[in-house]
């Protein structure tokens, strides 16, 4: 499935542009996405620029919003995806970070710029970080 199904109570698209160099910005999009999913909305997070760094298998258990304290990022990712939040990346952003899709955790969807724009235009809200 690429676009929105339209079956939820709303559609929210989050955009995460920050990577591992700013852990304090890593978890909030997952919190908000999980909250929106709990409100029975369809939710996706698009990781672009440095964002795909956060989805690396080797990273998700090693960083968290408060550094060494508190829950790792994997906890917040699981919280969001268990509620149906979709995680999206595009190839140019993987290239920018010298990553391949295999470097990322399971369940990430590859989309392109046109698909992103279509999701954004059809969403009820687009929130960018």
């Amino acid at each position, binding site marked *: 499935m690429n676009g929105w199904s339209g079956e939820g109570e709303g559609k929210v698209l989050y955009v995460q542009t920050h990577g591992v160099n700013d852990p304090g910005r890593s978890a909030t999009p997952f919190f908000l996405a999980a*909250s929106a999913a*709990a*409100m029975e909305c369809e939710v996706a997070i698009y990781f672009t620029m440095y964002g795909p760094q956060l989805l690396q298998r080797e990273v998700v258990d090693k960083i968290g919003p408060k550094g060494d304290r508190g829950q790792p990022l994997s906890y917040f990712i699981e919280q969001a995806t268990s509620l149906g939040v979709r995680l999206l990346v595009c190839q140019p952003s993987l290239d920018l970070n010298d990553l391949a899709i295999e470097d990322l955790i399971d369940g990430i969807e590859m989309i392109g710029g046109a698909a992103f724009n279509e999701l954004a235009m059809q969403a009820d809200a687009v929130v960018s970080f």
Partner: protein
Amino acid sequence: MAEVASPARTLDCTGMNCPLPVIKTAQAIKDIEVGEVLELLATDPGVDPDMHAWSSRTGHELLGIERRGDVFHVLLRRTK
């Protein structure tokens, strides 16, 4: 309020911060029958505006929020 809305289940989210009370409420409402009432206990002050927003968006009925000391008691009726 108590006699019209006797909770079928109580969900204790005291001590938990956003977004956990909302997420756990969304899960717990599915564990009761349509027409039954869920009682949520929470200490995060954000629960008041959050539950108004959650109810408005999902259509589940917010019967009331009462603060006793540090604990917010939220009553929600499953509508669908």
